């Protein structure tokens, strides 16, 4: 009989994750988490599968799955294959040159991942952002959220074996990428947000083009319902699989669409509005089922909501005005710490900046949605069929590079 060393339980990492803000009250009343998540000694019946890192069904990570026939006995996600030390690198660069680096973990959501950093630096340096710049930022952030979600949706489609659902979002995403390119000059890594506004003003005639393409985009994503979201095969595959109850979702510290799919109405844009979100009409989509289907549907509904936000922002944006405050070269912050949170495509994304009066930050720490959602994976996969693994795994709205940073 072969025996392998029992690896650490992922429970240890659970405690280290920052608790979700809404979880504080529910934490005491929450039931015990399901036991037995550790990888088992290798029984004769049990086969250990390495899913990843070179696997079409894993991201840049490894999931060690132990299966008994077709049932998953235990599962241990093993991220860390794409760690690049962005947080450490940020301590050696000044506040401006950090910008192209900090957006790298999620390049197709680069505006959103830069957003909390920029907000934090503005607070550190005491800059007042012009009104028009705030609107431009919101438009860019919402466009970027859609771009990210389309990418995520494309991969969700191919994970479920639906190649059309890979190609359509990948193509329709191009509409928004085109807008972002007109707006910022780069297709994915925009480096557009800077402390004190955005790098450049909107190009002429941008509002009309944006409105037209966003309207068409919304029409397109509504067509996904027939072929994907209302498809009976998809529904039967994802319904009732990987059910995350409301209490577990809060207790495990999940965030974003995963939290909203479990029935918790939590959205940073609504609860702690930043920039001009309090002037816009933001609705959140909440589903109560908490299964893979709900988790896959909430981002899709969020995209339509983003389209609404973009439209209303385009209406309300001041027609003229500066978009950027002129900064001194090498700005310095005081002895201060600041924590800012925004809603990214994957959920609440916080940035914690410690300044010690130098042009470089003393510490930059990002609290990302991907990692917090990944923590739920072993709990959801235990006892599931092997065929449910990709459906549950990718419905967690997880992006491997962001988890590693």
């Amino acid at each position: 009989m072969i025996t392998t060393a029992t690896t650490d339980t992922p429970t240890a990492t659970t405690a280290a994750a920052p608790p979700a803000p809404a979880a504080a009250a529910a934490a005491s009343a929450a039931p015990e988490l399901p036991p037995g998540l550790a990888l088992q000694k290798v029984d004769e019946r049990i086969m250990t599968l390495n899913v990843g890192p070179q696997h079409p069904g894993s991201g840049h990570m490894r999931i060690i799955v132990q299966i008994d026939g077709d049932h998953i006995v235990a599962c241990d996600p093993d991220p860390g294959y794409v760690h690049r030390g962005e947080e450490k690198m940020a301590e050696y660069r000044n506040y401006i040159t950090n910008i192209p680096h900090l957006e790298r973990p999620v390049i197709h959501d680069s505006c959103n991942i830069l957003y909390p950093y920029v907000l934090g630096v503005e607070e550190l340096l005491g800059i007042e952002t012009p009104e028009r710049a705030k609107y431009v930022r919101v438009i860019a952030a919402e466009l970027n959220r859609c771009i990210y979600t389309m990418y995520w949706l494309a991969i969700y489609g191919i994970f479920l074996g639906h190649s059309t659902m890979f190609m359509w979002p990948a193509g329709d995403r191009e509409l928004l990428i085109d807008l972002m390119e007109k707006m910022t000059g780069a297709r994915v890594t925009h480096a557009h947000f800077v402390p004190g506004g955005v790098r450049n003003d909107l190009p002429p005639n941008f509002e009309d083009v944006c409105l037209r393409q966003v309207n068409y985009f919304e029409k397109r994503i509504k067509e996904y319902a027939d072929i994907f979201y209302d498809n009976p095969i998809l529904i039967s595959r994802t319904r009732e699989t990987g059910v995350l109850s409301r209490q577990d979702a809060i207790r495990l510290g999940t965030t974003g669409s995963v939290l909203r799919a479990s029935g918790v109405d939590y959205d940073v844009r609504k609860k702690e509005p930043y920039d001009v979100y309090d002037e816009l009409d933001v609705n959140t989509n909440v589903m109560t089922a908490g299964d893979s289907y709900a988790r896959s549907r909430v981002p899709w509904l969020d995209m339509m909501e983003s389209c609404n936000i973009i439209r209303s922002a385009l209406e309300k944006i001041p027609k003229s005005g500066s978009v950027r405050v002129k900064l001194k070269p090498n700005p310095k912050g005081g002895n201060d710490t600041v924590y800012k949170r925004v809603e990214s495509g994957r959920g609440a994304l916080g940035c914690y900046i410690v300044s010690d009066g130098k042009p470089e930050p003393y510490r930059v720490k990002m609290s990302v949605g991907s990692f917090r959602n990944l923590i739920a994976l072993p709990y959801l996969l235990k006892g599931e069929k092997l065929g449910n693994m990709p459906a549950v795994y990718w419905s967690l709205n997880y992006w491997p590079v962001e988890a590693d940073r």
Partner: protein
Amino acid sequence: MKTATGIIRALNSGVKHLAVKRFTLRYPEEKLEFVGDGYQFDPSTGVGIAGLKGRHMLFHDHCTGCQLCSIACEGVAEAIGMVKVPEEQKQNKKSIMPQIDYGKCVFCGLCVDACPFYALYMTNDYELSSFSKEGLIYTPAQLAVKPYVRQDSSIQITERGATHG
């Protein structure tokens, strides 16, 4: 019954899309249209002008050899180095100008933001490729050339779907 109608609806949607226009941009034959002449920066107001962040363009008669672009790049990509140029410019006493290694450049445009003398802009040229790493290093003389970029395709939204045309 619901299953059957769902399956029929999905099939119907699939067949309907056989008549929708193709979205693909056939790249070497068609090339995208961009806004403006590339990303530029106005140091007097501190705001950029929207445009593609492509290959840089260096105006030799403006460049003073102040190395601000190189310093801005240090924390990002370390792609800009200052090299001696043979020519004599009266504003450029040291006769040094930036030389950009596009094997390293990430096209963030922070060097353009850093230039206070209207010397370094970005252009629409994005087709940079070479057979060797050395070929990607653009000397100041190469950077001074204004590129020609064919732009003939943009997204058209019609009744039968969006397409590049």
